[in-house]
């Protein structure tokens, strides 16, 4: 029964995607509305069933459905691993995913019928891929899911395929993701070559407990995969561009689920990372660096979705920081919390973008508080959560990460804690800036819509549900406020990822309070900068910094000069030097020679019967003479 439920959970979205793909041109709209979100909600029910079993029995199931490949030493069962970590991820994917897809029913309503069905087909395909990724019980399924979420992300970023920028962004995301796929595949190959295992259970039983060369190599290869998928430094440039996709896509794929797959990977592979110290520390360093890096860029962005994209990178940096120092429970709690409040922010922003005729420049909003009260309140809840202000869920999860970092006895987490603290303060500032510019003050003079309309219920209800989850979700785990308090998420995941191996520091609480006060102050400081305009804009004092941040530290330009243009030039040289003379020339030359020869030969076929006969008889005579000559000489 459980086994069937796990399979049904996986296959329902696949069936939905298949049906929509086959009937996209003819299916009526109400059927799309039913199938698209319906299969995800059914999956959510299946997940709840698995959850209830897991809560009662606390058993990790490894369901083998059949033996897929058996060839010598290579033994690959088709198995799904249903343990608490995968159930946790499935809850996020189908729960938050279901809300977002329901929201999309309203958001995508102005699309044509075929595009409408195409959108939900892609979304269901994505949900299936993501479920495959988290339910996989072996590395081949993991790689399949890993690559397929990249594919569905590509399809959805390029959803408006008639816009050149969308296609370019989709391609960029795909290429970056492929780098990660290659890392993951190489890691799986190395694991098989070293330990002869393809399943998680086999690999984790076989990997050594202490550090070594191969375990480090595998750790770093896995890290490449995680970094590319989660848009961490230095493979981060695709995520801001991915905002070309429709807003529900940004909420689901580029905030709540797919980009957190890297965190899941590190958590899932924790037996490897616990042994591979250098790879593990590197993931923490990358996380902290990305968190700060993205937060600074977010301070100057003007497109509301890009601000959210950079904040996503920054928050995933926190998750990497947490799992990188071994605080897996805290990392996954932040994953859950981030899924709540970032999906909320994206969807509330989607309401605004919808009302503003697809205008995304938040400087042209202003004064929405009075006209879109519901959306504004929800967006405020998300913003305060992102800024880490009590009592919203972001406060509890982010300060848990900072606390675990701070109390870690090693030196590296202490340093990274300081980076995280600076990032938290910056986060409060740019979140405040976004909130005040877009919603407070007076309506902007060049606002595209004078009297915006509030979103319809099908969009508003998911937003409100997420706003409630954002507001009260912190009650799941209250250690940030009360170190001895309950910790539902960490305790739930404890059988899979274990607990942190160090005691809490007594300074955690005062530092949490200090972070909170700084965050509140910076959130309000943004008000003085951007609404009251009481102070001179900081960019006037530091114009070079403003330029540096607006150009995103010139990383895109750097990659363009180093990689893209080098490859373009190589390709051009190859085109002229190799392709034209050799690859095009060879078959072309053969063709031309054949044609010319055929033209000459065709003249011999003159149609006169007696010529043919003469040639035939003459040939026979010559052959006869030759035979006789050979006979005579031998």
């Amino acid at each position, binding site marked *: 029964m459980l086994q069937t439920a796990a399979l049904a959970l996986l296959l329902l979205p696949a069936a939905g995607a298949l049906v929509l793909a086959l009937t996209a041109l003819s299916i009526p709209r109400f059927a799309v509305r039913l199938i698209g979100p319906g299969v995800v909600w059914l999956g959510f029910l299946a997940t709840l069933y698995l959850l209830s079993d897991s809560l009662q029995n606390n058993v990790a199931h490894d369901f083998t459905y059949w033996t897929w490949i058996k060839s010598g030493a290579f033994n690959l069962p088709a198995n799904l691993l249903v343990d608490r970590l995968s159930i946790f991820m499935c809850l996020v994917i189908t729960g938050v995913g279901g809300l977002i897809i329901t929201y999309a029913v309203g958001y995508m309503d102005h699309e044509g019928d075929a595009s409408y069905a195409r959108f939900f087909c892609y979304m269901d395909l994505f949900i299936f891929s993501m479920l495959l990724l988290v339910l996989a019980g072996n590395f081949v399924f993991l790689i399949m899911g890993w690559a397929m979420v990249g594919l569905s992300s590509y399809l959805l970023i390029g959803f408006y395929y008639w816009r050149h920028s969308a296609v370019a962004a989709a391609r960029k995301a795909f290429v970056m993701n492929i780098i990660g796929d290659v890392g993951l595949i190489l890691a799986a190959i190395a694991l098989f070559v070293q330990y002869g295992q393809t399943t998680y259970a086999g690999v984790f039983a076989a990997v050594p407990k202490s550090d070594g060369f191969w375990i480090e190599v595998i750790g770093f290869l896995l890290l490449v995969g995680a970094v590319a998928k989660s848009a961490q430094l230095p493979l981060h440039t695709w995520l801001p561009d991915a905002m070309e996709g429709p807003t529900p896509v940004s909420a689901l794929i580029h905030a709540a689920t797919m980009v957190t797959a890297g965190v899941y990977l590190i958590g899932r592979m924790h037996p490897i990372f616990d042994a591979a110290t250098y790879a593990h520390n590197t993931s923490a360093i990358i996380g902290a660096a990305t968190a700060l890096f993205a937060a600074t860029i977010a301070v100057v962005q003007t497109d509301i979705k890009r601000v959210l994209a950079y904040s996503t990178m920054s928050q995933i940096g926190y998750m990497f920081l947490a799992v990188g120092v071994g605080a897996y429970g805290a990392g996954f709690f932040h994953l859950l919390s981030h899924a709540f409040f970032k999906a909320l922010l994206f969807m509330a922003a989607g309401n605004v973008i919808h009302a503003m005729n697809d205008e995304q420049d938040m400087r042209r909003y202003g004064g929405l508080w009075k006209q879109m009260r519901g959306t504004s309140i929800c967006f405020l809840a998300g913003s305060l959560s992102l800024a880490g202000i009590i009592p919203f869920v972001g406060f509890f999860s982010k300060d848990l990460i900072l606390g675990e970092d701070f109390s870690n006895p090693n030196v590296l987490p202490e340093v990274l804690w300081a980076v995280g603290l600076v990032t938290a303060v910056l986060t409060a500032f740019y979140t405040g800036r976004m909130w005040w510019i877009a919603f407070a003050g007076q309506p902007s003079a060049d606002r595209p819509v004078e009297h915006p309309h509030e979103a319809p219920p099908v969009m508003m209800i998911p937003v409100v549900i997420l706003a409630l989850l954002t507001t009260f979700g912190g009650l799941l785990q209250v250690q940030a406020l009360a170190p001895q308090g309950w910790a539902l998420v960490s305790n739930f995941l404890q059988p899979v990822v274990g607990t942190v191996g160090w005691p809490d520091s007594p300074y955690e609480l005062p530092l949490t309070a200090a972070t909170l006060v700084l965050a509140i102050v910076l959130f309000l400081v943004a008000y003085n900068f951007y609404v009251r305009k009481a102070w001179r804009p900081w960019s006037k004092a530091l114009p070079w910094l403003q330029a540096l941040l607006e150009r995103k530290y010139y990383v895109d330009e750097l990659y363009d000069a180093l990689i893209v243009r080098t490859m373009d030039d190589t390709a051009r040289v190859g085109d002229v030097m190799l392709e034209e003379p050799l690859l095009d020339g060879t078959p072309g030359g053969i063709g031309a020679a054949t044609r010319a020869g055929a033209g000459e030969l065709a003249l011999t076929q003159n149609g006169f*019967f*007696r010529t043919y006969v003469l040639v035939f008889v003459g040939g026979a005579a010559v052959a006869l003479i030759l035979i006789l000559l050979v006979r005579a000489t031998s």
Partner: protein
Amino acid sequence: MPDYGQIQVGAGTLDARLVLGLAFVLFLMGAVGVLIRRHPIVILVCIELMLNAANLTLITFAAQLHNLEGQLFTLMTMTVAAAEAVVGLAILVDIFRVRDVDDVDELSELKG
């Protein structure tokens, strides 16, 4: 011409050279006829002549070597010749329905 010995014909014997010479002359007549005559029916008849010359050679050597295969193969040749005559004549009849042909070189539409 080398000596090909005697073959049995009824009660008596015959010099094989005579029969082979006849076959050679027949074949040459057929070949030259195909080459120089223009009317399609005549050409067909000349082809039959060449086939018969070949048959005669086969039978001669079969009799000389006391081997039945040559005689059997003659039957085969005659079957093929009959089929060939049928197909050739059928094509000619069809062509004559469309137009009158005196010279096979008039039928040169299929040149390259």
